[in-house]
């Protein structure tokens, strides 16, 4: 395995050097012999973070001006459609220089040779990030495919006032979580603790990750898919059981009905991530100041682990003519104090860089959580306990399969174990169809 990786990296470097030489030659012919690395560079950056143009302005007027590297932001739609767009642009050889990519999309992008290895240019940024976060950008190799930008450590959100009213205590284990749901049903049959929603696969992936699941791993030159592993089965059975007995709701989240349920106290808790205050502000505006955040319930008493839901990174594409300059910008954007403060203020992101999590930008709690002054201190402590995640080259297929299989199971209140099996099978079938070798 190590020799293979080295060999591949050698090939990749060789290709990169050849490409670099071609671009140099192209530059030289049009102008006098200026070096592509130190000459002025114009970079384009595809991102969906709101307010990113303001953060990039800081670069263009400051460090970017000194180094003659100008970055232009091109606003994009978030999520899976951007991955497809990047891959299409890459196929045409017209990709931008920098792209925002969710962690789980990185293997797909790497596998399509769309993002470049920037270990030489940006490898030293490693120390700014928690190990579990950094590992997602290396895919377990000695390459570095992106710089982490934001993270989404998972937490438990609940209505403090209603918990008191119904005589509930904040569950510290999943076992207590189930008991809380049942007790609430006895106290108030019309009210649900929460819902199991099948329309965002990231939530389930994060819960599985907390339980210790490793969905994609490698064995030599083969991928191993562990979606139907013991840890994920435990998570699926737990939620499937609660849905089947009617202890929690089975309707999807992010619907007008869900907003109303949160806003009127028909649902009084939400398993979510650090970005939840933003969602709650728009979904349940009337209940500001009544919610509180606590660590996610644990599988065994005394444990301290959480999963992550969401988060993204900045990657340099293989199409870029100025990979060095692009890597410099990506490193600045995600490790520089001034940049991170602006990202928090303009983009509302929760930074991946550990030092930034306790910076001045996060001294005050979010306005919605004014009743919890130490919101971000707690969040930073929880972020440290994030379990490592293992993404593979067809996360998109697994995610789609999750949505369809678990939506049907939630609707029928049927066995979630069968849905999980479907998810495992369609993921393996897709890998095999693409020609990957899959270990049993």
């Amino acid at each position, binding site marked *: 395995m190590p020799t*293979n990786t080295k060999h*591949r*990296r050698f*090939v*990749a470097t060789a*290709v990169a050097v050849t490409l670099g030489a071609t671009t140099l030659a192209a530059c030289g012919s049009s102008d006098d012999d200026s070096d592509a690395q130190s000459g002025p560079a114009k970079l384009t950056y595809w991102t969906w973070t709101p307010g990113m143009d303001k953060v990039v302005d800081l670069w263009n007027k400051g460090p970017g001006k000194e180094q003659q590297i100008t970055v232009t932001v091109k606003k994009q739609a978030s999520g*899976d*459609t951007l*991955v*497809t767009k990047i*891959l299409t642009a890459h196929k045409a050889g017209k990709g931008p220089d920098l792209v925002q990519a969710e962690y789980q999309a990185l*293997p*797909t992008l*790497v*596998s*399509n*040779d769309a993002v470049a290895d920037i270990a030489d240019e940006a490898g030293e940024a490693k120390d700014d990030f928690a190990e579990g976060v950094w590992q997602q950008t290396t*895919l377990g*190799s000695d390459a570095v495919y992106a710089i982490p930008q934001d993270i989404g450590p998972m937490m438990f959100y609940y209505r403090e006032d209603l918990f008191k009213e119904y005589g509930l205590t904040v569950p510290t284990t999943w076992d207590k979580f189930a008991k809380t749901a049942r007790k609430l049903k006895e106290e108030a049959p019309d009210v649900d603790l929460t819902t199991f929603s*099948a*329309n965002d696969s990231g939530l389930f992936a994060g819960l599985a990750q907390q339980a210790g699941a490793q969905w994609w791993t*490698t064995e030599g*030159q*083969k*991928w191993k898919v562990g979606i139907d592993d013991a840890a994920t089965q435990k998570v699926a059975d737990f939620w499937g059981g609660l849905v089947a007995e009617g202890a929690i709701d*089975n*309707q*999807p989240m*992010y*619907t*007008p*009905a869900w907003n*109303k*349920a949160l806003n009127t106290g*028909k649902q009084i808790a939400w398993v979510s991530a650090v970005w939840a205050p933003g969602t709650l502000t728009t979904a349940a505006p009337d209940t500001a100041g009544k919610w509180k955040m606590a660590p996610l319930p644990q599988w065994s008493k005394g444990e301290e682990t959480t999963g992550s839901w969401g988060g993204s990174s900045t990657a340099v594409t*293989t199409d870029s003519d100025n990979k060095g300059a692009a890597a410099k910008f990506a490193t600045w954007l995600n490790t520089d104090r001034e940049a991170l403060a602006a990202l928090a203020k303009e983009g509302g992101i929760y930074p991946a860089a550990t030092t930034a999590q306790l910076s001045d930008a996060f001294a005050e709690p979010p306005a919605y959580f004014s009743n919890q002054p130490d919101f971000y201190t707690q969040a930073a402590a929880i972020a440290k306990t994030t379990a490592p995640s293992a993404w593979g*080259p*067809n996360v*998109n*297929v697994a*995610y*789609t399969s999750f*949505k*369809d299989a678990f*939506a*049907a199971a*939630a*609707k029928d209140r049927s066995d979630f174990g069968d849905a999980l099996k479907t998810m495992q099978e369609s993921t393996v079938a*897709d890998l095999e*169809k*693409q*020609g*990957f*070798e899959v270990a049993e």
Partner: protein
Amino acid sequence: MTSTRKEPSGVTGTPGGRPSPARARSRGRGAPYLFLLPATVLFALFFALPIGYALWLSLHKVEVKGLGLGAGARQEVWAGLANYADALTDSELLAGALRVVGYGAIVVPVMLGLALVFALMLDSEKVRLTRFTRLAIFLPYAVPGVVAALLWGFLYLPDVSPFYFVLDKLGLPQPDLLDGGPLYLALSNIAVWGGTGFNMIVIYTSLRAIPHEVYEAARLDGATPLQIALRIKIPMVAPSLVLTFFFSIIATLQVFSEPTTLKPLTNSVSTTWSPLMKVYQDAFGKGDIHSAAAGAVLIAVATLVLSFGFLRVANSRSQQEEAR
């Protein structure tokens, strides 16, 4: 009978009669080709080329080596008809096609039936406020499909819908419109609401084109308004009915925005509910444009066969009637 069937049907877009040979010779042989050039170039660039590319894509696939990481791990290779074989044996695509057939069996008759009834009513002499009514029925067509689906979607959700509020207050049963069989009604309702106006205008326009002497003659013969509608008006607007039917079949087979918009609101609509949604999912969810291309080609072929098959049947029937 066989000779009449070979006549080109108007809708296929065959150019009209050619000039007589003598006149063509006098203008020079190159001229027609010169005039054809712009159309040919545009046709080739924006029609033949994209279709050709889709066909080419559908005959290829991506093959990965090893872990698929790093440069050169992915290759586009010839797949032959493998993508088509996969699509045709995919139970989800077949199930999606059946769902669309069920949906179409509700939408097409209801929408065209309503459009015809409305058009006949507007055309009758007793009706008042014609202009306003015509506009009111047509207006939903001006609402974009996605907006219409969102609007109805909100009305279908029990917790936020005013309808359910009223049902609740009256103590009436509150059906779940976003599940099982009622889901088809819910989806069809959106299409009928949006499409009836357009079809009504088409039928109404051709009703207005019927000369009034025909009605006068019928009335002198003692025909009631109902008899005039059934025996004169409907047969005379039959070509418009054929046309609207033709458009409706195509629109039904391509249903996409309504179920896609309702999907986030319910667990009952899967990401591959209709065949076109599966194509979208293949291309943008899975990133597999080759399977998506094969699916798209299959849908196009099915649409062509069904819609032109219908036209052929309709044409041959009307020609038979004329022959009688």
